[in-house]
């Protein structure tokens, strides 16, 4: 559920967090972008990182825009369609600002690290102090620039905090290779500790990989 318009025609500007994500992708590798919107990130990955990049997008307008632009994108749903992909089919699988909109984040997350050697996941952090404060003071579901819709109309049905996310990763035997704290507009915040970031960061970005040893528990 990307809520930003990505100016793809002139290929700039790209949302700041997408720039960070693109930087995490090794040049020339195979990438799957899940929830690729109108293909802004795919475009950067292909043209600047020389990646072999594909996309899945839930909205038909987004898909058509991507294919019109020459990108390989299918109409699909992270909840239902990831199970089709074989294990290790991609070097990197990207799920940017979409996890909180899935019906079964646990199985989606498991599938990400199964399909890709690496997974890059970003999401809005519901543990940010301003959201906590708003809930405390007003007693109502908080909204923010990252989470602008009201509770009854939002597609963000599985919101979590950075600590919640880390706990799930632990449960699924997924290891965190990199963590980047982001502000509300997707720019990097220099907070190294996820614990502090859970209070201070509006958004979070993780580079994940399958943990060593046990098989990841995935509902396929």
């Amino acid at each position, binding site marked *: 559920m990307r809520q930003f318009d990505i100016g793809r025609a002139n290929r700039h500007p790209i949302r700041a967090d997408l720039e960070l994500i693109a930087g995490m992708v090794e040049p020339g590798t195979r990438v799957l972008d899940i929830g690729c919107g109108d293909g802004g990130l795919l475009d950067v990955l292909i043209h600047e990182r020389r990646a072999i990049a594909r996309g899945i997008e839930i909205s*038909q307008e987004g898909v058509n825009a991507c*294919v019109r632009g020459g990108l390989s994108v*299918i109409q699909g749903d992270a909840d239902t369609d990831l199970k089709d992909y*074989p294990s290790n089919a991609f070097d990197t699988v990207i799920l940017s600002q979409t996890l909180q909109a899935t019906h079964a984040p646990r199985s989606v997350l498991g599938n990400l690290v199964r399909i890709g050697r690496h997974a890059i996941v970003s999401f809005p952090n519901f543990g940010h102090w301003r959201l906590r404060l708003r809930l405390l003071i007003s007693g109502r579901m908080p909204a923010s620039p990252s989470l602008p819709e009201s509770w009854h109309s939002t597609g963000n049905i599985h919101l979590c905090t950075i600590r919640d996310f880390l706990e799930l990763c632990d449960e699924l035997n997924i290891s965190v290779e990199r963590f980047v704290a982001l502000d509300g507009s997707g720019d990097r915040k220099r907070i190294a500790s996820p614990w502090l970031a859970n209070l201070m960061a509006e958004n979070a970005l993780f580079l994940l990989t399958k943990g060593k040893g046990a098989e990841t528990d995935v509902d396929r």
Partner: protein
Amino acid sequence: MTQDAPSQSRKPSLRDPFDAGHAVALGTDWPLQLDCGTALGPFTMAYRTYGRLDAEHSNAILVCHALTGDQHPVDPPHSNRPGWWQLMIGPGKPLDTDRYFVICANVLGGCAGTTGPKEINPATGRPWGLDFPVITIADMVRAQTLLLDHLEIDRLFCVIGGSMGAMQALQFAVSYPERTFACVPIAGAARHSAQNIAFHEVGRQAIMADPEWCGGNYLEEGTVPRRGLAVARMAAHITYLSEPALHRKFGRRLQDRQAVTYGFDADFQVESYLRHQGSTFVDRFDANSYLYITRAMDYFDLVSEYDGVLARAFAQTPVRYCVVSFTSDWLFPTSQSREIVHALNAAAADVSFVEIETDKGHDAFLLDEPEFFAVLRGFLQGCSDHWRLTQSATGS
């Protein structure tokens, strides 16, 4: 029987009243081995080309026609009517003849010049009729590869088709993945559904119930099973449309009358339209050909060909796919395109998939659908960029 003199693609119109296409004898060295077990050859293949083949023979697009199509998607000869893909092929069109060399051949078993049941069986000197071997989609595709050999095209840029053309395009890319860079199956399926087999059976029974069919020997008997073939066409034509499209076009409007006549004349416009569709079809299509080609579609099942796992058909495929479906198509619904896409995903293949919003039903692939055209242009442009990269990488 000769190689093309490629038509001048820069002319404002492609129309050339003398261009009835070409016919070539294929399977002259070895006969074509058919799935049914018999061998056919030599056989004739009628085809048409548009645009100019480049020096590297790398810009060819094979267009596969649907059940009742022919090798004239643009500017059919001896006719003022547009071709069935007149909107798609031509200078500046999605299949741009300024850039691509477009080939379209009448399918094996067809009735527009390629060997089929109405042609003469050399063994008997009489029309084949029901002695013609039952052919499959894979046989049609095998025959087309012989045509490509004849045209000295090792690898297509793209194979594309709608409906039965989608079946051929899929079969081509699955059987000969090294012979095409891209594949665009439109409004198709990996296997013909029970519902579609049922509709075909109605059509075939209508033909065979016509006494003029004469057990398939009507050409020798000097008759034409007009009524049977017309009914087959009428029933099929309904499946190509959609309820909203029929309603929009005809509603319950009456045909040249103010009130119903309390009889069985064509009171309603929709009846009159269907009767017209049926009777004009009879003039251009052979009844036995209709039996054979519908049978080929019924037998099409890529899933069972690969032991029930469609993904195996696409294992390691280098082909770039663009699967297209239409929202109101109930003959080849989106779910059937999605089955192909899921299998391609399971093979980690390079695939794009778009569903085009339209109320025009299955026929939408033949009609003016700007979004469909835009998507196709984008896909082909993306392929073209990539194709040039791979071409330069291999130094060819």
